[in-house]
């Protein structure tokens, strides 16, 4: 399946975007961590968020998840403003924070039960969703083991399962494949791709091959600013001479021209 087919199957005008950022800005003292970033993600779309370390990826995602208040601009989940109605917005979002934090003394089962309960799920519905999330992320073998005894790969999948357990329409995953071995990476990518049919997904990553593998669109941040928002192959062709890596380096100023060059596709 090619990216253009995926986009064709999900017309952007069918409904308001499930995730939207408009002029989103965050200041830490004098430093602008995120500077006037705007883009949106519709149902059926996977958007890869890339950029060098410190480009503002995590800060931007934290604002959309309602963890960090923006200095300016707005973020919305399914049209619900994250600052004005945080609980309603968060109910529709699955969020994997950076580093996949989890309570080490709990079991994956216990953690997922808590997250599901926090989302208002009880009884048989909770059981069903929990089993579904465990199966989807391949946690069956360890579901009753303490999380602090699990390998890094399993821990990341626990946090991923926690983001999925309430079957949210919008997903924000901060480096879901970081620290995984190639086989686990493959599994998580396939999981994300499978979810994308009826969800809007933002995935941040350092692995550009991942962008090509799972993302319909790529948003490039450099020094807090959005410098590109396009389909990966288009971006590679226009800026990188066919290579996404070359495009990335050129756009983010890492060994290429200075940042600030804005590239957007007409579509």
């Amino acid at each position: 399946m090619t990216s253009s087919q995926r986009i064709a199957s999900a017309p952007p005008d069918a409904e308001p975007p499930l995730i939207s950022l408009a002029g989103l800005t965050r200041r830490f003292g004098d430093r602008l961590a995120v500077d006037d970033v705007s883009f949106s993600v519709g149902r059926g779309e996977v958007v890869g968020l890339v950029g060098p370390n410190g480009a503002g990826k995590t800060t931007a995602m934290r604002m959309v998840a309602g963890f960090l208040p923006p200095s300016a601009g707005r973020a919305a989940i399914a049209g619900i403003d994250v600052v004005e109605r945080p609980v309603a917005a968060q109910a529709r979002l699955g969020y994997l924070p950076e580093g996949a934090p989890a309570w080490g003394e709990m079991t994956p089962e216990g953690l997922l039960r808590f997250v599901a309960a926090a989302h208002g799920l009880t009884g048989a519905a909770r059981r069903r969703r929990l089993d579904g999330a465990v199966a989807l992320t391949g946690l069956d073998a360890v579901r009753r083991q303490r999380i602090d005894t699990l390998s890094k790969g399993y821990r990341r999948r626990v946090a991923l399962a926690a983001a999925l357990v309430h079957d949210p329409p919008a997903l924000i995953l901060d480096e879901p494949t970081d620290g995984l071995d190639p086989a686990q990476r493959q599994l998580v990518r396939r999981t994300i791709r499978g979810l994308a049919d009826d969800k809007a997904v933002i995935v941040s990553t350092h692995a550009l091959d991942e962008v090509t593998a799972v993302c319909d669109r790529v948003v490039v941040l450099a020094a807090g600013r959005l410098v590109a928002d396009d389909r990966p192959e288009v971006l590679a062709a226009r800026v990188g001479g066919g290579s996404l890596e070359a495009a990335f380096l050129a756009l983010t100023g890492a060994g290429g021209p200075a940042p600030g060059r804005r590239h957007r596709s007409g579509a």
Partner: protein
Amino acid sequence: MSAPARRKTRYSRRPVAAAGPGARIGRAAVALRAWARPIGAVVGRELASYLATPLAAVFIVVFLLASAVATFELGRFFERGRADLEPFFRFHPWLYLWLAPAFAMRLWAEDRRVGTIELLLTLPIGPARAVIGKFLAAWLMAAVALALTVPLWLTVAWLGDPDHGVIAAGYLASLLLAGAYLAIGTAASAATRSQVIAFIAAFAVALALTAPGSTPVVGLIAPWVPDRLVTLLGWFSLEARFAAMVRGVVDPRDGLFLISVIVYFLSLAGLLVARTAHR
């Protein structure tokens, strides 16, 4: 004929169901339950953590040992030959003063350090309910510790003829007192990622709200300071308020003081979590 009749019943039924104080209370109860449900989830998670680690068990054992030493050694429980629990309760402020900050110090600081605070606060709960849930779980542990001292009550009842009303009031007062110190500890823990700083800050605040107006300190300073100052210090001392309640002096203001300390420090904790969680 049947159609107007049906309409009539519909009209007559609707106002009864929609208005009236009973319906309003019913709706409020439903809304309150929906609001409180996530708190239950947070309490459950905290309790699961307490069961998975020896933390709570250690604190309960330390509390039981320390209160036993205080009651029998310092309080001369048997020697005084009176059937009451005054020597047991008398030391509770001085136990909670350091045990509660130690127990509460991890509540938020640990989540900040590990990063689970980001997981917790991006669930559709909001900081207020997260603070309340964590606090209630800790308070429940204090209730368990207190409940384990009930054999002492039974002993007194077997040895003599105590005033059970006063003892029951003493237990209630002690539970409120534990809540007040835990609320102080919660606020301190919400302010930092360092458990050591959380402990020291909570201990300092707890000491300031305990010692100045407390019975032993007042006994020491009373000859040298004006009476009005002693009264003033007593108002703001958890120990002085608690001592009055344990003696069986029923003054709702003492209970209200403890409750307002809980509400004040939990509000502060909520504010700290909401404003500074991401730092």
